[in-house]
């Protein structure tokens, strides 16, 4: 393949957290990633290391990924201490190697949080997020019997704001970067989406209470306004959603 404009080849020292399972001890291992094209994505760089490890008879690094276009929320790791790496508003799979320089050292670690148990290497168990949604992150309508789509008017601004909140991909970066391992941005986004839409109103109070209770039961921490979640969110979900969650929660608690 010919080199594309601006494409360079770089060499990196990569330190990766390796841990066979949740109960054994983990450690950082060092690998040399050579001839990495700056047009590669971060995960493609890991692919290259993994191919080499496999050929050497060693076990490749386990990491979660699927869509590789920033929408499924499957990928994610701390890169040099930052969730999804240095680029703002970017998932790990969308991070490209052109943001690194030759001879950089890159440290890659899994999300760490009480509520996310480690599975292997960079893979963690985020089923706690599913449990929070099961507690009330939906509108209770069965299939069939819905009125015509245009029978429910939604002001454009409300639809846009609801969409901003609904853009959450459930990757867990917010929890991983919060010093308290709080899931307030995740819950705030879902509660906000429905609080902004007329369809969500009938269950608004019940929803906010149930989701917050579930979040607490699952041992996510409290929000102390550190704003790290917003900074780490690859979809740039705003913490105004947390403020809205607090309002919804208070409303529901008092009335």
């Amino acid at each position, binding site marked *: 393949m010919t080199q594309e404009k601006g494409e360079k080849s770089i060499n990196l020292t990569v330190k990766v957290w390796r841990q066979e399972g949740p109960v054994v001890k983990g450690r950082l291992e060092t690998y040399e990633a050579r001839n990495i094209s700056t047009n590669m994505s971060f995960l493609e760089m890991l692919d290259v290391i993994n191919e080499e490890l496999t050929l050497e008879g060693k076990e490749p690094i386990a990491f979660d990924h*699927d869509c590789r276009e920033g*929408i*499924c929320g499957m990928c994610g790791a701390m890169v040099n201490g930052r969730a999804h790496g240095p680029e703002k508003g970017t998932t790990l799979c*969308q991070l490209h190697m052109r943001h690194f320089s030759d001879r950089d050292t890159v440290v890659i670690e899994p999300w760490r949080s009480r509520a996310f148990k480690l599975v292997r290497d960079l893979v963690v168990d985020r089923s706690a997020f599913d449990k929070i949604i*099961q507690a009330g992150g939906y509108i*209770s309508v069965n*299939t069939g019997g819905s009125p015509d789509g245009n029978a*429910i008017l939604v*002001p454009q601004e409300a*639809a846009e704001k609801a969409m901003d909140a609904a853009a959450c991909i459930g990757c867990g970066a917010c929890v991983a970067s919060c010093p308290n391992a709080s899931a307030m941005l995740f819950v705030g986004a879902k509660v906000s989406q429905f609080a902004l839409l007329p369809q969500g109103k009938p269950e608004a109070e019940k929803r906010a209470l149930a989701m917050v209770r579930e979040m607490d039961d699952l041992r996510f921490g409290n929000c102390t306004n550190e704003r790290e979640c917003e900074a780490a969110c690859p979809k740039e979900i705003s913490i105004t959603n947390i403020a809205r969650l607090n309002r919804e929660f208070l409303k529901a608690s008092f009335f």
Partner: protein
Amino acid sequence: MQLDSKQPGGPLADKWDNHIFDLKLVNPANKRKFEIIVVGTGLAGGSASASLAELGYTVKTFCIQDSPRRAHSIAAQGGINAAKNYPNDGDSVWRLFYDTIKGGDYRSREANVYRLAQISNQIIDQCVAQGVPFAREYGGLLANRSFGGAQVSRTFYARGQTGQQLLLGAYGALSRQIAAGKVTLFTRQDMLDLVVVNGQVRGIITRNLISGRIEAHAADAVVLATGGYSNVYYLSTNAMTSNISAACSAYRKGAVFANPCFTQIHPTCIPVHGTYQSKLTLMSESLRNDGRVWVPKTPGDKRQPRQIPESERDYYLENRYPSFGNLVPRDVASRNAKVQCDADKGVGETGLAVYLDFEDAIKRDGKDVIAKKYGNLFQMYEKITADNPYEAPMMIYPAVHYTMGGLWVDYNLMSSLPGLFVLGEANFSDHGANRLGASALMQGLADGYFIIPYTIGGYLSGASIEKVSTDHQAFRDSVQAVEARIQKFLSIKGRRTVDDFHRELGTIMWEYCGMSRNDENLLKAKERIGELKGEFWENVLVSGSAGQFNQNLEKAGRVADFIEFGELMVTDAMARKESCGSHFSEAFQTEENEAKRDDENFCHVSVYEHGGDNKDPVCHKEPLVFENVELTQRSYK
């Protein structure tokens, strides 16, 4: 083999209503006694699981990812069609039906497609009620945009994340049923075999991807909603775990497979830029609403795009197809891009790209309007390519995107194996030889929300289903076979990685069984896939062990199945001696190089039955009968 499509009689518009009435009902009190396994949590599987549980059935739902919300459907960008005619531009159920039949180049069933068009409207209502944040007009009404292959504006959308929002709606409904105890969810599970007892499908065998344990699950019926097989080509727009293995296991157990060679190549993807590349990224077709496709008129013109004056550009789609312009169907747009690049008019470093230019749209509507419509797509493009599409035109090239072929199903969405239903992209049902944009989401949700809830009842109430547990010999045999295959992968200890085999398969398929096909190349493909298969089973290197989280082992199984399935695709491509929709066979083209069908000899679904290991498949034909539309040469001029 008798292939009965079970299309109901009567006038087209009444078929579905009559059929619903004719289907036997399951007594509400008995529903919870029936156990249904649903494999897949994309739009089709997610909506089916939720809807079946709401009716009272006991549902067990499986997916590969760590959460049902991450199914590949999440990545759909552009939108979902419905025949609402909200814009008052002349749309109707009939027109959506007609466009879909024509877009599919007359290789789908009238009755199925008509039902799809009818149901499309209910889907929008359902999703709005669930709180899907569709785009709105200022007055609060739902907004629409246009997609390829249609002259009306019937596509509903949520920015460039329509699939995500629809899937989160279905995931919400599914989560509600999980909380209610009606659905038991099994995540990080890989279905590896289908279990048939006394001719009825009664369960599945899975591998727990965390512990490596092989598990058996029994039920009264199984619903497969496991998505498409574009990853046969290695590079595609599909998610990395999208696979053919679940469908292949059903095929090996006797379910027949329809039209395997019908694969859609999407015209607007980011071009390939390196051998290390692991997947391709789609740029939504909605961009063709405002973007203009062009190449330089002079072959080999290497000037920067903005230095090429208007008079030296060839807006080849607008010129060739004045009435549809940039909005021709995908197969037409893709093939034309290839023609330009083959004539050395391709752009960019590799010459395998064409421009998609927004300069005029930005001049006309302003940057803000364009940003609001496509902002996130432009951003995605810039992240990957480091180029800014507000300033320079995008570069795009076709890539494998969707598979119209799939497990054969009848009008009830039941496969040729009693008790096995297939939904969404995994079946073959509605798109013929080419799918129109924004119609996959529609079909997945139609299947899951509004068809399977009725038709599965018809089966369960009519069949006599004995009690079977996973202690049955058929389950044990299946578990044993699955374990033996896994041991085989691990014991080969060869010298080539799984990805390396996959990459080679992809190259073979793309070069010889891709956008344009001929016998010579197909023969080459057949030979090379045969060799690759031989080498795979002797020289593949799979690390780790069976009883652990082992992504290498997972992939080995998928690639082994892709190789086997690639052979079937090539066989089908060779057998179809005509061009239709996405299947362009060079020997069959009109004077203007458009696909030339042979309705006399090929107006049928090609249906393959597994012939046994290392034996040729047996081909059956389901004739397609058109009573309501006239077959014409597709023209988008």
